[in-house]
């Protein structure tokens, strides 16, 4: 993981070099002020590109996107690729660029794969806003309910609290190649090493412990294997929406006392949360994320400045902070922690 760290640092410096390189081309590519649109608001088109439009998560997001469109009268569209595959997403983005949309709001499948496309978009004067991509370089703003590190840490905090800060735990992701998942997973481990010395990640700390391959059934099978191989396991986290239902099912069936913490939508997890197997769900509301991406894009198009402490108009984003890392990251305080006590307050 140390190698990985230095590699990403290198990437970061490369990113800077590119930035300065394009500076000379005229205007700062990364200054939102350069993207003020001369067109009337009603002529703008804001396109939201998701990972997979069939997933409940992004259907929820579409509600927020449409809400924004209705509220403002701005033309908004949401598109997903024909396959949940980075290459297909690149195609969608490239095609939208050609159709002359005014803003692109992207939830990348793989941030690395779309860098070049997003750069092209910006060079053409298209506003680029991303979500779930705190390491995306070619974006004006990345909007996050929180940072990946903070989210990973929050997951770990929740798990640690539920399992009493001691014992073995395991981490599941969809694929080792899922960039965001791996960030969350690595952040969890980092937090545990820093704050919970009595906890131990199985398999000598290898991240992740298993892949769910974005399938609830596979998550279940892998969880079972892990539980069999580690009968003394006390905690389990899963960061893909397929992971926790599978893990919880395995735990229930084996009749073990393992705390399950993870990411997902409340309705899908409700039975397991109510039965107590899933102790905590961490998430943010994709409806709000969709809304916020569009809002940020429209503000840039309208020439409005977004600065530290800005109010983006919905709860959780009334006082955003801006962190400059690989990009400018707008961070709200919109993480939701759902437990048995408040699960009935959410319906998505």
């Amino acid at each position, binding site marked *: 993981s140390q*190698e*990985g760290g230095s*590699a990403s640092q*290198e*990437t970061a410096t*490369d*990113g800077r*070099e*590119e930035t300065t*390189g394009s500076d000379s081309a005229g205007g700062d590519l990364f200054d939102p002020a350069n993207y003020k649109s001369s067109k009337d608001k009603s002529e703008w088109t804001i*396109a939201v590109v998701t990972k997979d*439009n*069939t997933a409940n998560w992004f259907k929820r997001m579409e509600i927020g996107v449409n809400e924004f469109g209705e509220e403002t009268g701005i033309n908004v*569209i949401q*598109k*997903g*690729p*024909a*396959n949940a*595959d*980075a*290459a*297909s997403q*690149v*195609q*969608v983005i*490239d*095609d*939208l*660029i*050609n*159709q*002359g949309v005014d803003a692109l709001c992207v939830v990348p499948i*793989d*941030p*690395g*794969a*779309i*860098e*070049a*496309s997003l750069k*092209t978009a910006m060079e053409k004067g298209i506003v680029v806003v991303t979500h779930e991509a705190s390491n995306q370089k070619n974006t004006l703003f990345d909007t996050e309910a929180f940072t990946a590190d903070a989210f990973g840490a929050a997951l770990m905090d929740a798990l640690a609290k539920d399992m009493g800060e001691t014992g073995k735990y395991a981490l599941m992701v969809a*694929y*080792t*190649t899922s*960039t965001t998942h*791996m960030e969350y997973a690595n952040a969890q481990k980092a937090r545990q090493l820093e704050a919970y010395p009595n906890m131990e990640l199985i398999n000598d700390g290898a991240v992740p412990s298993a892949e769910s391959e974005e399938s609830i059934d596979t998550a279940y099978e892998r969880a079972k294997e892990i539980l069999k191989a580690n009968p003394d396991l006390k905690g389990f986290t899963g960061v893909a929406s397929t992971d926790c239902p599978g893990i919880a099912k395995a735990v229930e069936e084996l009749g073990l006392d393992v705390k399950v913490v993870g990411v997902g939508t409340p309705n899908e997890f409700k039975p397991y949360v109510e039965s107590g197997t899933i102790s905590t769900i961490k998430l943010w509301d994709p409806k709000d994320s969709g809304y916020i991406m569009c809002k940020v894009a429209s503000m840039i198009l309208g020439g409005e400045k977004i600065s530290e402490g800005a109010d983006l108009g919905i709860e959780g984003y009334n006082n955003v902070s801006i962190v400059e890392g690989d990009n400018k990251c707008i961070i709200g305080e919109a993480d939701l922690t759902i437990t048995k006590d408040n699960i009935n307050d959410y319906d998505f």
Partner: protein
Amino acid sequence: MIKAKKIDDNIVRLLIILTAFIMIACVTRPANFIQLGNFQTMVKQMSEYGLMALGVGICMISGGIDLSTVYIANLTGIIAGMMMQNMAAGSNGNGYIYLAILVALLVGAICGIFNGFLVSYLRIPAMLATLGSYQLFMGIAIVISHGSTVSGIPEAYTRFGTTLIAQIPVAFIIFLLVTIVLSFIISKTKFGQRIYLVGTNAQAVKFAGIKYNAIIIRAYMISGLISAIAGLVSLARINSAKADFGSSYTMQTILIAVLGGVHPDGGFGSIPGIAIAVVILQILSSYLNMFPNISNYYRNLIWGFVLIAVLIINFVINKRKAAKLRKMS
């Protein structure tokens, strides 16, 4: 003797379909479709899977199939990307880039030879051999990249991904060149003819003194090599490489090859046919992206429909022609 026709009917029909698609797109979405930028994007996108489809097509002509092209492309992209990253700092000049390209091509060829070895010497059905090797190549790619994206490719290399020559993206020029070279190899050389023969009757090939194993290995090697080129093109275009990039391309390449007139049992097919099928698919995809309210998943529906419709049209036309012949004689 009747003079042999120069262009085969299937290509003519594909061209008609292509023209029809272009016309529909031009009429219904002129503002979006008839645009230099749109064409540039389309040709850039299709170059990668187009290259792989050519490789798959050659293997299918030889009587097999190659399911591993996408993962060879990713593996070689990752290797080249990591080499460029690591050597960029210590070197002045672009020598290291050429070295990385060379190594990537070599790795692609070796992967292809490995596939060919499984299919020829070990007699594993190609579908299974390349199913196994695709897991293997993807696995190796995950192991060396730790599953994460290899990015931070030196600009000296990625510039090439965005270069235009006479307004044509380099990637497409590469695709065209490979198409031309392969068309030539397949239709005009000994080796090319032997691929068809091997795909027609593997037993008779032995009696005709054609080295079956050697031909098969070379066919898969070419597929591996082209996949490596696709990997390098993709590395330049998206500035990164990853073990699972483009996993949906596998089925797509087979569909393209089949639409292009390659027979899945071997012995038939042409490179230009595949190339035209690539263009048809790309226009279809880009066209659908012009309708915000139409889900991209309709592409699969249309694509499956076009494939079967073309098969049936070919069938009916051939039958009609035979009936006409019968009446004449």
